[in-house]
């Protein structure tokens, strides 16, 4: 069927790619979640334990980092001075710092568990805890790399790096949401 072709308007490929990645990562964590539910019900050897308190501090840090990232994005779009100062690059640096603090905090949570004698192979509940936190941490490190790349682009290109920062931000916010869901799940199940 013949018709006059029109220019298509579509999102930037990086953004679409992140959405596709979000779907894949969601499936991975959904699979492990279903494995945990099945494993918990399979035999009576499931040993609940109390989650380290630092996990909640880490959660606040990660949620704050999503906020600072949005500040960076709004400053990139409208670079005029604001009541709270700082450039997009500075807010991005703060976001990166908070992200790394979160990772450090997660490592401290592992140490807290180890002090209680809970290791990867101690019990199925501790195995799932280490697995969830390790996989989320690895994915978040990918986000740190993406934000570092976006920071470089922002410094080089200014507002023209909006697409890159947008895609990196989408991934980062997903990581924050994913962690909140995981924490909820771990709180209920462990």
């Amino acid at each position, binding site marked *: 069927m013949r018709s006059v*072709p029109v*220019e298509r308007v579509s999102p930037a490929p990086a*953004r679409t790619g992140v959405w596709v990645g979000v779907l894949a990562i969601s499936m991975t964590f959904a699979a*492990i979640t279903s494995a945990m539910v099945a*494993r918990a019900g399979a035999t009576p050897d499931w040993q609940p334990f109390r989650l380290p308190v630092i996990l909640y501090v880490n959660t606040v840090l990660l949620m704050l980092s999503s906020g600072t990232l949005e500040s960076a994005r709004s400053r990139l779009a409208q670079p005029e001075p604001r009541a709270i100062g700082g450039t997009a690059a500075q807010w991005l640096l703060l976001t990166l710092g908070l992200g790394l603090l979160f990772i450090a905090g997660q490592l401290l949570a592992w140490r807290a568990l180890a002090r209680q004698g809970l290791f*990867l192979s101690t019990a*199925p509940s501790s195995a799932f805890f280490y697995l969830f936190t390790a996989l989320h941490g690895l994915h978040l490190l990918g986000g740190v790399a993406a934000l570092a790349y976006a920071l470089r682009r922002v410094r080089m290109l200014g507002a023209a790096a909006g697409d890159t920062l*947008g895609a990196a931000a989408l991934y980062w916010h997903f990581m924050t949401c994913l962690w909140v869901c995981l924490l909820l799940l771990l709180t209920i199940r462990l």
Partner: protein
Amino acid sequence: MTHNVATPAAAHHHAPPRTFLRKYVFSVDHKVIGKQYLGLALVAVCTGMFLSWLMRLHLASPELPIPGLSKLSPNGAPGGVMTPEYYLSLMTMHGTIMVFFVLTTAPFAGFGNFVLPLQVGAEDMAFPRINMMSFWVTFVAFVVLIAAFFIPDGPPLSGWTAYAPLSAVGKDAGPGQGLGQTLWAVSIALFCIGQLLGALNFITTTLDLRTKGMSLSRLPYATWAWFITSVIGLIAFSVLLPACILLILDRVAGTSFFIPAGLVISDRLQAHSGGSPLLWQHLFWFFGHPEVYIAILPGFGIISQVLPAFARKPLLGPRVFIACLAAIALLSYTVWGHHMFLSGMNPFSATLFSVPTLIITIPATIVTLLWIGTLYGSKLRFTTAALFCLGFASVFVSGGISGFFLAQPSIDVYLHGTYFVVAHFHFVMGVAAMFGIFAGTYYWFPKMFGRMMNETLGKVHFALTFIGVYCIFMPMHYLGLHGDVRRYSAFTDEYMKGDIPLHRFITVAALFTGAVQLIFLVNLIYSRFKGSKATDNPWQSTTLEWATTSPPPFDNFGGHPPVVYRGPNEYGTPSAAGDYTPQTTP
């Protein structure tokens, strides 16, 4: 949300490569990566077929020493005669290599990489570096798997499905279950990562890098199939990857995800507690059944692309075809339990998996009827590619019909452990997908290398292969109905002894069919260097890959992205080009 006008040129930020390494090894060009995937699949299929020869020789004559085999595995084949355990190892490696590194790699990653960006009018994939990484991760996965042949214990013996706890407990479970099984799990985990990166590129490229005028309704059918396969793969490999991670942790970190408490293997109590072997089966088959469609849907797309080009008729019901692919994709996630009817499943649960299994045959049947309808009243050009399309339909139907039986739990309980299932999945998934690969090779070879393949050799290759595969797999239905158990390395039970002559016939047929593939190899190599020069559009096809040179330049369209004015289905409509109208014709 940030928007920009999609420009197909967006992908190639880089200049054409100059060094050998950048051009042919670590290339970011989707065409080179596609060829690399196809080359990897070729090596893999030769390896997998060689393993099947060894297995068939052993089945025909279990005492027969196979020259050289003792050198490959002194423990597995002392004096050249393989042990039952080594037979299982070869079976495991055959299945793994064929399913992952041939049936997924060639029709999906290989042809998809080469053709998809061309068909949507893009200069490359959306993320060329990730695309290169996808291939090399897959390559490393293959190397890790093959390394299992060269370690003292040899390859694992738990089958391509790696059922726990056999796959999870370590070397107590038998030869190859130590490091060999760990290599298997690492290899498959890497493979998942490679294919996830590939699916990411396929989906994004199809959605965002289509050229001007290439609406979704004008997308060629092969691209539709690769796109839908990518979505299936994205979800399926995202589940297999964590399953492999859990398996690796059970093996090396002492966790108990899949290993039950109190398990005694080789007189040794395993130091694990409370794991669920069924959990592995659920996770594996949630991937495993969609994997069947990952292998076969690209074939559907290739046939639907190639058949109209030689029938010189539009594909019947193109929208129905795409709807059927989508229906298959959706239903593929509801049927995994039919692989587990023997697991002690509640009969009501079995019914829940049986019904969608029967329903999924409807869209698959409709697709086959669309091909037959397309052929009706056509003047088919009997090229080799067209013959393989007909062969695809034939073997797919032959294998599909046995699926109706196996979908019913009461019948499956009897047939599941027999050669009936071997016949079923080899026809419907293995041979059909291979015929799709052959059809694609004969069809796109001129575009890939700028030369035509030899048609006479091609037709001989088709005829002998077609006869050969029916001689191998058709008798297996009878063997299965007679109760011949699959995975046995020798048929020593009284009731099976009478079937040994038929097994010998199958072995001869397998050796013959394998040898016939040399014709294909010779044709491939000869045509690559000495074949007659191909024109840009030797088959008078409508889609965009034929609107550029053969082979295409580095940026695909020489800096002039094509503009699309119509769908890919305009055959039999007189135009200036002949009896078809290319998509680029205003």
